[in-house]
């Protein structure tokens, strides 16, 4: 599969995850979200940036528990919970947030 955007072609896997994470850009994330009828607000971006920072350090997406903990630190305790995360990303943090953030999908017994 591919995403065509602003005259460039981006390779993705069958589930729409970027094959080459280096090709990611904020604009591309917005385009992926727009294709899902989702508009990225400030809190979405907090989550996406946490994912990207963690990935840069550990080469894997963070466990949900850690993502939520970091979100709590930045957005306050009332937003540090799984239901709020699913409100932001109804298809789930792995399937949706990681895809917008240009991370590969975490795979295992999860």
């Amino acid at each position: 599969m591919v995403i065509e955007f602003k005259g460039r072609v981006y390779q993705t896997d069958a589930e729409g995850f970027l094959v080459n994470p280096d090709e990611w850009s904020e604009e591309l994330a917005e385009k992926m979200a727009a294709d899902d009828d989702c508009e990225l607000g400030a809190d979405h971006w907090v989550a996406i940036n946490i994912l990207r920072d963690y990935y840069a350090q550990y080469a894997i997406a963070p466990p949900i528990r850690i993502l939520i903990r970091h979100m709590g630190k930045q957005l306050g305790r009332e937003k540090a919970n799984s239901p709020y995360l699913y409100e932001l990303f109804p298809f789930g943090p792995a399937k949706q947030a990681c895809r917008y953030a240009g991370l590969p999908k975490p795979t295992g017994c999860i």
Partner: protein
Amino acid sequence: MSATRKLDIPKIRQRDEAAKKPYFRSQDDATSQLIDDWQTVAVQKLGEEIRSNRALRVFLDSCVKCGACTDKCHYFLGDGDPLNMPVARQDLIRGVYRRYHTLAGRLFPKLVGAREFTEPLLQDWSAYYYQCSECRRCAVFCPFGIDTAEITMAGRSILDAVGVKQNYIHTVLDNVERVGNNLGMIGPAIADTLAGLEEDVFDETGVNVRFPLDDAGADVLLLVPSADFFAEPHVDGLIGCAKIFHQQGIRWTLSTTASEAANFALFVGDEEKMQTIADRVSAAVRELGVKQVVVGECGHAWRVASSYWPGLIGDGTSTDAGGFDTRHICEFTHELFRKGALRLDQTVHSDKVITFHDSCNVARGSRMGKQPRDIYRMPRELLRAACENFVDMAPDTICEYTFCCGGGGGLLTDELMDVRVSGASPRVNALEAVIANHGVTHMAAICAICKSQFRSVLPHYGLGMDMIVSLHQIVGDAVVLNRQM
């Protein structure tokens, strides 16, 4: 509905034009990476399989088409697809075996059900050997004990040999090879996660429960599925284990190099990779100097540990000659319980009614304890010890008759969600019955795949994803913690 109601057998439906398939390596179509001389290679590989695995040959020879297995597979019960009857799944290989590897099949193919290995038949293999979770329920009912799991493993290893490699399983195997665990979690990520868990448990209980990593000189190495570092409710099971070790004052450790209990090589019948993955454990045992390996809540890990480790990395029953003692976490905790050492407070669970899902690889592929049915008794006794309200599901759906969760054996991948949801229906029916009749609120499991699968599929049946819990989460939440440690 009553707890003992009979299972509904579906009407056989017309086969789909294109049966549901998993993704194969970087291709949408199963045959697009097929090697040129696939037929020759496949027939040759099948020959190797039947020579190296005598059981496989007996299974292929001995079916008398009695029909006992036809309504025993959860995927058939879920979708009525005739090729999901275990006998039909076996026949996909059996016809090819007869055609190329038996005299009668070579001379009189039509008389003995022999079949040419054509590309459409290969397409059926690539669909239906990935609609089998290798759970072995059908084998319990077969009067000859024919084990479809062995046949599926052989089918998959032949598919692998001709270039049809299932993406999910091979991504996981690559992660294990590259990093050491299924998720591809590097050491620093595990360390960061464990530090976070220590903080969480301290915030919640005020007790400094430790999660040691690579602690050389520890007595116990806990080998968990890497999902226990990552996913819910798996991580709650790991927390429960840590609380038990803490209460008992046991020096234990996790390992960055043996950070995975699972062994997906079993699913594709790859003995070489199975050995490599198992070797990580014996290397970690030597490096850390532990006396005992405790295998955490991972279904097929325990199958591999109890049934294959003796051949792969030595007899886990003795501690002499560099060997080590191997236990399932339920055996380990049960022994503490039996000795009266485990201090539990049942009142924390007074609002719950719990049932137990026997994970197929544990219930039908391994053993625990010294008595024949300890493998069913021990987890239940632990749940009863932690929670006064425990109810079993219908007898034909538990213990050796348990239904697979629907996501086992390498099927826990999103593109197979339809298969996973329909395959879960026999288990969910039994669960719905105990919810209706006994007010069951939670279902405990001892397998990472079962837990992830139910979290994904229960909402499709209008049930909450939080119903599924780890056994050691239930036990761990009831553990009375020593504050002075």
